[in-house]
């Protein structure tokens, strides 16, 4: 680094001050980069946790809908006579360690088709909804899957 000799002669310590200031600047820049990387890593971590929670609820809703659909495919009146108002289940609480979710099922239909809506909700506020529609007019009975309302 070029420091004015006359200046350093006049004010001994000026060169050291410049070195210290530049060192401080470089360290500040490096620290800013490190902090940005750390912040982004934390953000990705939070996003991943959220995605895992979503997938977890989706799997739970999917397999719940499957269980109800299996039962209805075998006997369409397994849970009472199908109606358009809907048959609603009691909320089922699933707990294991830190995980806790509730499951709600609604069955609607008539003599042509039945629709099963399985909703899995977590305490953290997330939820997943899976719907199956069973065609009761064909043998063997077929059903289609859809997500959301």
């Amino acid at each position, binding site marked *: 680094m070029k420091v004015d000799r006359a200046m350093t002669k006049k004010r001994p310590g000026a060169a050291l001050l410049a070195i210290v200031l530049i*060192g401080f600047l470089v*360290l500040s820049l*490096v*620290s800013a980069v*490190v902090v940005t*990387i*750390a912040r982004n*890593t934390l953000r990705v971590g939070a996003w991943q*946790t959220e995605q*895992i929670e979503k*997938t*977890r609820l989706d*799997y*739970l809703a*999917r*397999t*719940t809908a*499957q*269980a*109800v659909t*299996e*039962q209805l495919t075998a006997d369409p009146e*397994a*849970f*009472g006579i199908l109606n358009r108002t809907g*048959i*609603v*289940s*009691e909320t*089922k609480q*699933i707990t*294991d*360690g830190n*995980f806790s*979710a509730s*499951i709600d*099922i609604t*069955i609607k239909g008539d003599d042509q088709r039945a629709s099963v809506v399985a909703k899995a909700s977590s305490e953290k506020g997330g939820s997943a909804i899976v719907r199956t529609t069973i065609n009761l007019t064909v043998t063997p009975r077929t059903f289609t899957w859809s997500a959301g309302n």
Partner: protein
Amino acid sequence: MKRTGAIFVEVIVSILLFTVGILALTGTLFYGVKMVTESRQETIKEQEYKNSVENEILGIIQGSDPSPAGASIGSDQIIINSRQLPFTLYRYKQEGKEGTEMYLIKRGNTP
């Protein structure tokens, strides 16, 4: 009052602080490089785990999987219109990684 050696102590302290800072930064950089290097394997492992759970769901839906590979954590029932829907809850977990638990329900035998 003369304090000979005061500047020397200051320089030593500043060098010490600087060294600690540099070491911390180097550690962070090494950690970052390690994370990037391991992320490929980690992604593959996560994908394999997710695929295995998806296959289990497929097995349950197709009825081809009489006993899922997950750990059974008990049987219970859902009450729908005063009628019971028995089920067994299965737990899956990626080996060596916390917070990756997945849960699947398999219908049990109706009483």
